[in-house]
């Protein structure tokens, strides 16, 4: 399902003026996918993954995601004025990187866009029940992510999530994620 909140982005773009895109010196109304494309290029995963795009932080934090069943590969950009996370350290300490407040686990390193970057893993709650009532046992999906700095204040979080406590026996999503990472390039950089 594609969510395009360009109107929301427009409202925030009017408020944040020329800082909405570091590569642009003029106020530009952009969609989340345009805001992401200004910083990073990549090939979408093959095989019918659906695209979602939206923004948090009143438009400051654009997201482009590819979804196939339980698997989700996402590109999130942070660090602009109004962002929920000013820098990578605040992201790593915040709810989006944690397992409901517990710090993410460092699980190794990986080379992406010519940079050697740390890989992290954390859990996130899935299958939420009625918000007003006590739900059944907590079930956690798993997300692996890395943080790719850009040349400016903004930084990009690339992630693969599986909305299931049980791993994928066939590893289909993980294979798509590894293939996706090989296509990632920072805008304006040779890697």
């Amino acid at each position, binding site marked *: 399902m594609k969510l395009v909140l360009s109107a929301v982005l427009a409202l925030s773009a009017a408020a944040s003026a020329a800082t909405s895109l570091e590569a642009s010196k003029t106020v530009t109304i952009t969609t989340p996918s345009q805001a992401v494309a200004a910083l990073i290029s990549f090939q979408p995963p093959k095989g019918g993954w659906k695209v979602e795009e939206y923004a948090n932080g009143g438009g400051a934090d654009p997201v482009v995601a590819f979804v196939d069943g339980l698997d989700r590969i996402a590109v999130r950009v942070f660090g602009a004025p109004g962002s929920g996370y000013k820098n990578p350290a605040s992201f790593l300490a*915040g709810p989006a990187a944690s397992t409901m*407040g*517990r710090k993410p686990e460092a699980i190794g390193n990986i080379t992406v866009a010519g940079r050697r970057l740390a890989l992290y893993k954390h859990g996130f709650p899935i299958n*939420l029940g009625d*918000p007003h009532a*006590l739900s059944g046992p907590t*079930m956690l999906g798993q997300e692996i992510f890395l943080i790719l700095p850009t040349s400016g204040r903004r930084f990009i979080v690339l992630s693969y999530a599986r909305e299931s406590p049980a791993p994928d026996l066939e590893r289909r999503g993980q294979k798509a994620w590894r293939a996706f990472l090989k296509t990632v390039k920072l805008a304006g950089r040779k890697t």
Partner: protein
Amino acid sequence: MSRRLASLVLGSFLLILGTFAPACPTCALPPASAPVSDPAPQDAFEAAAPGALLPEELDWLLALEGRRYELINGRLSDRKAADAAKHLLTNFAVWELLGRRASERTAVLRTAAKDGRLPEEFHDEAITLFWMRGTLISPEDRAFLREATRLKPKLQPGVGSFEDGLRNPVTPPPAGGSNPTADPTAQATELLRSLRHSLSIKPDADPRAAAAMNEALESLLKTPTGRELALEFTASDARATIEFDNVDNSTTVIKNGRRILYASGGYTIMGANPPRVVLNRHYLETDPDYRRVDMTATLGHELFGHAFEAQRSEKAGVPPDVIGYYRGDEAGAGLIGWLVETELGGPLDSEHMWSYLADPERYHNNLVTNLPYYATTLSLAEMRAPLATLEGRVDAIEIDRKKIRDYAVAVVAWRSAIEHFVTVHGMDRGQFSSLSEDIDATIIWNDAHQKNLDDISASLLATITHWKKPETAAALATLAEASDSTYMRQSEQRLAARTDRLRGLVAGRAWEPSIPPVPGKLTWDDLDRLMEQDRTETDHWEKTE
């Protein structure tokens, strides 16, 4: 008769006697493999039930009084039982012992505390004792554990201290002396009086109701969020009625020895004049410590999140019907409840809260297939194209239906992997019990959610059909117009401010489970590693690329 012959005869006699003695029927039952809900005091204690005992508690019990107790088939047997037929410890007997241990450990923690604060290395034990054994120890010990581990929330910009919030900024305190009108206690009393004056609290026949309501109101005003909103509520002449009443499909359950609500905490009838806040009557049956936090958070959610907002929006010229479709209404009330709960030092056990903080837009998107109500709630942008938005969600329901089925299939597929490690590799089935419980819960979730999606689909389609009628065009135009209103813009600002405040309050804290995971059981990561190793080192599985 020689001594040796006598002992042989005696032994034979006892053997024969034992043969005719009544057997222990409970001992022959397999050990419990699931948590025991609402255990009867006189029943045998199921020590093997998940979550029944912490490992350190079992070690302590088995070492007591020169190893007086032993484990027999998942139950505790007393070697010195006066009546052999009653050798298994009952729930009551074990609770007494666990209470004794918890009191002893609390005494140790008291000696370790300095200025009422515990060193970091004792925090986990204190939290475990409070939440798991709090009902078995004295109120004084419970109060110590609660205070020793409660984090003091940082002051947030714009909220300030209690004194800062209430002192009149245009009359600074006189130099050299304190402002007599700034007495915090007097101001707290005055604020409570003003709030109560704005409320009509319905008398209740249950003698516990008045005290519970008073405690909730007082607790609400002990929180910065509650005080701030109470000031706004009273200053704007808002009104509400509050009462206890029955809630559909409500019940309570025992969790770790404490009775808690297993239902919605309440609701608000926003169309009533004034709005009517209903708190679930079952709260009166629950554990006092749980009620003090949870019911207060529910009161904040309903009174300030819904009853107050209904009046605020109406004064601003936004019709109540519009608010029912605005997704920020429920999000705002949710944030107030989470803030109050956090500021009261409650456990951060809401997955919804953590999900919202991690990615608010994705949280709203996921709510669309959570309940019928959410399927028709809209963002400001969506309020400008409501019919098209809802029509787009019809597909989302079918996508979710398939996704949940795929999820169940994918999780259940691991049963064969577990079976393989038990039957071929000889691993203990008990090690996989937590994973098996997850698989069982997944099947139940899938069945329940498929039915939920039927209800959501019916509600969504009904709304779409209604909105396609020519007579609703004006209502849809009102919805679009309201999306640009000052009220809505300010509401979004309040959401952002409360989200930032909550993010700051939970920094450094983590989710605290209502039921902790059972130590010693394999996790999904463990099983995944076993699988990888088996795939690499054996030919038990078809090779994957």
